[in-house]
């Protein structure tokens, strides 16, 4: 599903965010990316989405070499990837419904499918009563859950989640993790960056630990540290 081969990412200001990272992730896996703040977790996720380009090395996602992907094919790649962004990235002038529905509209789903699936998934993340609010009327955790709903709604092949529980209390976090687990069980590959020790330790899935851009641990059924 995902293959990184000697990937290095150096930002314009010469910060080395990832340093010779090689990782293979199989279809259907559930992987935690852990590490200190600034260790390169978000960069790892951004590279898979081709939001940023690798400075060196090759990245394959769903069999495609991202460096060779022509710009107009990028949207089609992204439609197979659901992403929870660390800063949510919600459209401020659309309602919660439209934000989530947009991910379906973009892949050309008919209106009746949208009208059915969107309230369903919002109910699942506990936002059944905020469907018509705009994002700036939501609490931080609620915005995060909208982001999660948008990432899951089109049942993507790959789910990238950047600290999906950073703004959530432990109880809600557990609910979200259940949701991700369920998504994973129906075949979706999940890559999740997190600092939440409790969650990582409870799930006991594969853990990749980054430190200053280097993979310092890659352990199946691992714990936070």
């Amino acid at each position, binding site marked *: 599903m995902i293959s990184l081969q000697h990937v290095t990412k150096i930002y314009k200001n010469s910060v080395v965010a990832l340093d010779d990272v090689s990782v293979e992730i199989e279809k259907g896996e559930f992987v935690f990316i852990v590490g200190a703040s600034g260790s390169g977790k978000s960069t790892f996720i951004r590279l898979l989405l081709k*939001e940023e380009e690798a400075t060196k090395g090759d990245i394959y996602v769903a069999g495609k070499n991202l460096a060779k992907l022509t710009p107009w094919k*990028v*949207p089609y790649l*992204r439609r197979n990837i659901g*992403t929870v962004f660390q800063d949510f990235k919600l*459209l401020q*002038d659309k309602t919660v419904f439209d934000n989530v529905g947009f991910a379906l*509209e973009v892949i050309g789903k008919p*209106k009746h499918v949208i009208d059915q699936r969107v309230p369903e998934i919002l109910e699942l993340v506990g936002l059944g009563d905020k469907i018509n609010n705009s994002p700036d009327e939501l609490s931080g955790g609620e915005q995060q859950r909208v982001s999660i709903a948008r990432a899951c709604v089109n049942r993507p092949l790959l789910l990238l989640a950047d600290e999906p529980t950073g703004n959530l209390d432990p109880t809600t976090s557990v609910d979200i993790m259940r949701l991700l687990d369920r998504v994973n069980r129906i075949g979706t590959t999940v890559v999740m960056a997190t600092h939440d020790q409790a969650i990582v330790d409870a799930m006991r899935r594969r853990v990749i630990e980054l430190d200053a851009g280097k993979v310092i641990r890659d352990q199946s059924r691992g714990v936070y540290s």
Partner: protein
Amino acid sequence: MFRRFEYYLREVTSGLRRNGLVAFAAVSTTFIALLLFGLALLISRQVNLMIEATTGNVEVAVYLSDPVNPQTVEALTQKLASLPAVANVTYESKAEACAKFKQEFANQPGLVQGVSCDPKDNPLPASLRVKLAHPEEYSQVAAVLGCRSDGTCAQPGVDKIYDFRGLLDRLFAVTRVFRVGVLLVALVMLIAAAILIANTVRMGLFARRKEIGIMKLVGATNWRIRIPFLIEGLFESLIGASLAVLFLFGLKVAFINPLYGKIQFVPWVTNSDVVAVIPWLVVAGALVALIAGFAGMRRFLDV
């Protein structure tokens, strides 16, 4: 297909509703820019109408030597009438010339009394009055009659032609400046309108660059993002153009219509002149909005 259309329509109307300030700026800027451009076009039309009215009255007088021979008159008339620059030629007999003179100088009784209209000693010459179709080419008349710069002519039967060259040169020099001037102003307006509209479109995109970035990250193709923005821009520019047209009509009714009755000897722009300006405004507005939207978006689509 229909769903897609519905989607775009929804995007556009909600975009207009939610970005009130940006939409207002776009509409009002387009309105003003196109109003100014239209105003320049109409002023240009008005100036041309006035120039045509002024120069349209230009008449060359070919004075015939006494005694006047009807065959010569006939021959000269045909010769002159065949010139491309000439609209028509009329003959003014000595008697007519005298009558005109008396009328013209009616307020100088001494002068009128000193001139007798008796065919025997009528001092005024007969003449051919040549109306020009293309006043700028008045020199054709002098050339065909072999006239020299002092007004005397080689053509037999012709005494003199009225030395209007200085006058017409001055007239046309001024009218040319006016024509070029108003066209220049119209051009400046068009460029100004283009820059202004492009600016607003780009600022509108700038204010929504985050939105565009997010859409891309969610997997929207460039066209899916672009089309609603372009339609929105087009829509705003059409509203602006319509307002400009309405306003131009308003200005015309308010300021030109009262002149129809008061100053009749000057031709004024008519409703159909205003109508003729409409396609220019609409096309200019739409083109600029589309091009600016397209070009401006390139920057923000590179996510």
